[in-house]
């Protein structure tokens, strides 16, 4: 069942280069996307691809310049009063930086209990037990509620961040690079925790990452973004087994494989830099770096089109589609 649907989202920001004329960064350009209940959608892209902005737009933490987000069929921007408040709490987020995501001046108890009390998810009498239960759920001892954020390690803070996101019984959680600031030995703990919680609470997750490996591990479907647009979206296995878009291919080839026998082929590596998203290249934004680029790529913006035998696998590259998948 469809839980979230985005239609033609656009979002720009004023560029910070102040001497220049007021230019705008095109963070998200013409994105339509559906998220189904109880799935994990992976969103992968490099810096400037607009993946975080898209995540924030989907849960209403930011408003699009144009386009609409529907949550259970309702237009987010049209919600008012109690409805708005309710929907607001059903969509949560886990941030990347565990050091900035908790108020340093508050005890964990205060951080977790305030929203519970405000939204009447708990009473003064039982809020203590509820906080303790939340902490146990994410693998922390109930006693930690008396402590301050600076007394925890990065991984533990991320657990607290997850507990906060869980506290209001959300339907959707956006995980914005939740493990990229953590040590490798801690990353798996958090990934496993997210997986467990999703199974237990039937959560819908949007998992944002710049690396393919962790996203493959967690996601049911994966969307690949490049300079504000989605270039390919497919089932997690499918994306790797029959890759269409040349950028997706390059991304896979560039990810260092932990196996010394399988060396990266220099021929498969992308050349060139990621262009600025203030003045993205004309036509297909990827064409200056693309090994398949033809003249038409410079002019026409490719639309997401299903691959021949799979309607759920969409690719924004007519040339790759004509040539068949990997």
């Amino acid at each position, binding site marked *: 069942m469809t839980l979230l649907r985005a239609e033609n989202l656009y979002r720009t920001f004023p560029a910070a280069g102040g001497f220049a004329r007021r230019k705008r960064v095109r963070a998200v350009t013409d994105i339509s996307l559906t998220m189904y209940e109880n799935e994990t959608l992976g969103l992968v892209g*490099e*810096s400037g691809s607009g993946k975080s902005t898209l995540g924030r737009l989907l849960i209403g933490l930011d408003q699009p310049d144009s386009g609409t987000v529907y949550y259970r069929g309702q237009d987010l921007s049209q919600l008012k009063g109690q409805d708005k408040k309710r929907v607001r709490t059903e969509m949560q987020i886990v941030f990347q930086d565990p050091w900035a995501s908790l108020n340093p001046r508050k005890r964990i108890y205060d951080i977790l209990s305030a929203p519970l009390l405000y939204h009447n998810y708990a009473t003064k009498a039982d809020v203590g037990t509820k906080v303790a239960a939340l902490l146990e759920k994410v693998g922390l001892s109930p006693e930690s509620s008396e402590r301050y954020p600076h007394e925890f*390690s990065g*991984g*533990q803070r991320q657990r607290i961040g997850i507990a906060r996101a869980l506290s209001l019984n959300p339907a959707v959680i956006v995980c914005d690079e939740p493990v990229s600031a953590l*040590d*490798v*030995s*801690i*990353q*798996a*703990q958090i*990934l*496993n925790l997210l997986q467990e919680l999703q199974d237990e609470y039937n959560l819908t997750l949007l998992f944002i990452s*710049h*690396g*393919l*490996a*962790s996203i*493959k*591990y967690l996601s049911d479907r994966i969307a690949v973004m490049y300079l504000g647009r989605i270039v390919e979206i497919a089932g*997690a*296995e499918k994306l*790797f087994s029959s890759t269409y878009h040349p950028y997706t291919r*390059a*991304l*896979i*080839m*560039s*990810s*260092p*494989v*932990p*196996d*010394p*026998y*399988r*060396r*990266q082929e*220099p021929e498969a*590596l*992308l*050349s060139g*830099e*990621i262009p600025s998203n203030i003045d993205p290249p004309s036509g297909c934004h990827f064409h200056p770096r693309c090994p398949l680029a033809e003249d038409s790529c410079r002019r026409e913006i490719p639309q997401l089109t299903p691959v021949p035998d799979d309607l759920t696998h969409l690719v924004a590259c007519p040339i790759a589609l004509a040539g068949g998948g990997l």
Partner: protein
Amino acid sequence: MMATGHNEPVLSVRDLAISFKTEQGERILLRDASFEVKRGEVLGIVGESGSGKSITALSLMGLLPVSGRVSHGEAWFEGQDLFTLSPRQLDRIRGKRIAMIFQDALTSLNPVFTIGNQIVEGIRAHQDISKAQATQQAAQLLSRVGMADPDNVLGQYAHMLSGGMRQRAMIAMALASEPALIIADEATSSLDVTIQAQIMHLLRELSLERDMSVLLITHDIGLIAQMADKVIVMYAGEIVENTDVFTLFEAPGHPYTRALLETVPSIEDDKDRELQAIPGVVPEDYDAISGCRFAGRCAYVEPKCRESRQIMLPLDKCRQVRCIRAQNNELEFVHSTQCEASKIALARRKQEAKAKLSERLRT
């Protein structure tokens, strides 16, 4: 240039210990570190944050922050112990014979001088040539590291370049005087994967082309597999394993190494793979631990592990570990290994890369 044979170490570090002054008094953040880098070899140092890998590199360059000091040890490089040199003597080596590439190129390049100015300065510090000649040389270097328009880049400031270009500029700067050893400290961690792959490829080519040794410091196991010939694994201020890259992935000798390999997701994995998480966290005040520092998180721990300080000992010809149980042959996963096979694989991989490079240079 000193004549060094291929099996001669370029750099040889013995019993290195580094301590820092902190609010709680003097803390030993690295101890008992010994390793060698051979000519033309890429030595990878892998470890999590706080394991001591960066301070090891900084100590070799004499760049430890003022609160830190080398409290013990030697580092022999081209016949001199780096730790006994005066800053002035050190200046004749760093930038010339050993160069370093840092993680964040934006803050590591001076914002108020042009790229050209900063490269030329490095060249002229070690070569007695005119500014014009040095500028010409700088342009050549920039073009070698893959800059499309070197003459233009010479006049630009760091903030005008993209992340990948900045890192290329840093590499060009490091190459200025044809160093024997390049230290790359998380040189690509803040870059995107497609850019990281380019930079790493460049580094590998340069090392082959100039027979230059590389000390590659990273937390990324994937990069280690792709780049390193030999590997040092660090945990909580100690080296826990020292081996070659093929042996490391095939037959890790230390429980931490094994756990680390298990915990990393890979795009090659099946989707249903269960990630084995290492429980717990890196102990914060590890220099207070008297026994094995990994004991608290180790799946194979026994009381004797906590009893005495662990030391590095060889398991066989190609593995050294800091684990008493592995040394006593009590861990079933530490199966015997074919050191010779790894050596051959290593040599073959290098040969293939060399062939590819010469082919590319010819065209």
